[in-house]
């Protein structure tokens, strides 16, 4: 009996009872499906995160100082950081290259009869430009003089400029922010959106002017860039020392890029572990299901086995016949699981607009696991079939 004959034979037997074969596969399908869809989603999510960080323009030496403990949301922090904190960090942390204090509030920005509420009016320093790798398309960015002089000048994002001024030149015009007049000195280059926030509606004013119009000197965050990747941990330590000294206790946290990626990885591997556990149980149950059905199939076909042996089938031929059948059932379940898993993940990715990363290794591994389950659960029934005595089998009613 050739390999191909064994496969066609098994295929016919599987197709003869389609519903039963499908139900038998279900455990394997569910197991493989859950792992493949999660792994594909996770890979896509990771790819998305990297893409976003890339777009953000900052690179791995970037970090942000927020008030509050690790894991606490920045917006909920009651700790007050001020411009003098930022100044102290800039002066006393030799590992840092750039420091950018940010006083961010939402606010209303008005030109003539048009007005727009921006969620991010950012009081910042000239350092922002270099830190973020952003650029201006027209005019200039904020200067040290603007900050020191508490000048009421503003740099606008492209989309916001178009909303306020239409096609007309914006530079040299005056807009009102929370009632105060600001001179438009520049427009940002187009940046697109990052994490669902349209960066082309960004509004940048001197951090000192922000203190005046927002009527608070509390900073939302302090951006900073270390001199090299190797210096990131040292920079974090320096910032913490300076702040602890100034505030009397450690009440701030430093979020590094590396940190964010590590958190993402931790979440993903925890999720993967859980789903792998579920999948393993599902595959175990699926394997037992296949074994059970194969035992039933052997019992149903005792007479057939007798006939096959009488006309010359060797033990090995019978073994191969039943083993092939269980492997095909399991492998078919695996293929259905893989394709529906990838299908679901792609569907979700397309809907939320994330990149689709299909892991070749995950698919290879899933195929291997499905085959393995088929072999393990088929061996015992197939051995029973092969061991049947031909005379007894022919007498079987």
């Amino acid at each position, binding site marked *: 009996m050739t390999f191909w004959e064994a496969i066609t*034979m098994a295929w*016919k037997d599987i197709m003869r009872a389609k519903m039963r074969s499908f139900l038998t596969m279900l455990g394997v399908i569910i197991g493989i499906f859950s792992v493949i869809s999660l792994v594909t989603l996770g890979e896509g999510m990771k790819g998305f995160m990297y893409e976003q960080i890339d777009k953000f323009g900052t690179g791995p030496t970037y970090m942000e100082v927020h008030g509050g403990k690790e894991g606490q949301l920045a917006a909920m922090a009651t700790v007050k950081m001020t411009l003098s904190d930022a100044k102290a960090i800039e002066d006393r942390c030799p590992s840092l290259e750039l420091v950018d204090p940010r006083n961010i509030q939402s606010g209303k920005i008005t030109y003539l009869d048009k007005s727009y509420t921006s969620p991010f009016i950012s009081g910042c320093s000239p350092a922002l430009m270099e830190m973020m790798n952003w650029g201006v398309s027209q005019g200039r960015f904020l200067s040290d003089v603007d900050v020191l002089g508490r000048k009421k000048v503003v740099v606008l994002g492209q989309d916001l400029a178009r909303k306020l001024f239409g096609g007309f030149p914006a530079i040299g015009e005056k807009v009102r922010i929370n009632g105060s007049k600001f001179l438009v000195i520049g427009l940002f280059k187009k940046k697109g959106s990052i994490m669902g926030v349209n960066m082309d509606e960004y509004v940048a004013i001197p951090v000192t002017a922000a203190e005046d119009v927002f009527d608070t000197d509390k900073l939302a965050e302090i951006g900073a860039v270390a001199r090299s990747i190797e210096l990131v941990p040292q920079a974090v330590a320096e910032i913490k020392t300076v702040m602890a000294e100034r505030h009397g206790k450690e009440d701030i946290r430093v979020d590094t890029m590396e940190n964010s990626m590590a958190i993402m990885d931790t979440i993903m591997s925890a999720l993967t572990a859980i789903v792998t556990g579920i999948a393993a149980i599902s595959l175990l149950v699926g394997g037992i299901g296949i074994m059970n059905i194969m035992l039933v199939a052997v019992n149903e076909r005792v007479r057939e086995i007798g006939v096959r042996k009488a*006309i010359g089938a060797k033990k090995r031929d019978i073994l191969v016949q039943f083993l092939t059948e269980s492997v095909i059932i399991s492998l078919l379940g695996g293929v259905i699981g893989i394709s529906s898993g990838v299908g679901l993940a792609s569907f979700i990715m397309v809907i939320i607009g994330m990149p689709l990363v299909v892991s070749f290794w995950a698919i290879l591994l899933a195929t291997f696991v499905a085959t393995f389950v088929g072999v393990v659960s088929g061996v015992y029934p197939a051995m029973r079939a092969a061991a049947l005595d031909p005379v007894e089998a022919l007498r079987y009613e």
Partner: protein
Amino acid sequence: MSRIVKVEDLHRTYILGKVEVPALRGLSFEVTKGEFVSITGPSGCGKSTLMHLIGCLDHPDSGTVYLDDINVSKLNDNQLAEIRNKKIGFVFQTFNLLPRLSAIENVELPLIYGFFTPRQMKEKSMAVLEKVGLAHRAEHRPPEMSGGERQRVAIARALVVEPSIILADEPTGNLDSKSSEEIMAIFQGLNNEGATIIMVTHEHDIANCTKRNINLKDGQVLADQPVKQVCLPADRS
């Protein structure tokens, strides 16, 4: 004339729980090429057991079976399977076709365990189906066929490997008299073409269609004599 089968002092005892059932008790005879032998005897006298031993499906407790002068008692399971595949054509009382396969697929089955290309399998199977007059029903499955037709498919399956001997265990036992006659006509035709046949039956009419009769009783040969053969008209319409 060449010897096809030789059995020597065969013994076979079944053990049913604690009871020993002696089925064959010292049985010897020879069959040469071209013979058409019927084996008769009351139910339970060991006819099927004998066929299983000659057919290499079972081992004797003692005694020897020679097939084409090979001592099959000395062979292992794989070698026996090979002998069954190449040298023996079985025909059973209950046909033993696989119901989900078509007639031609059933006939091809022994060839699957040999070394043939799909094309060779098709050609050989079609040729023997033609021989038993069922070429036109090649694609039909056994449940769509009459008993006589099923038995003819079974005969085709036995013939397809061009066996040294055909072993038929009550091949007409489940058939009406008309179908029985058709089947016997086929066997006679095959025998006239040179096939060696051993056939178990408990019907005198059937035994009279053969050329030699071995009568068993209690697992021993009671009589072994030539038969004045009744020839059937080999008409297969």
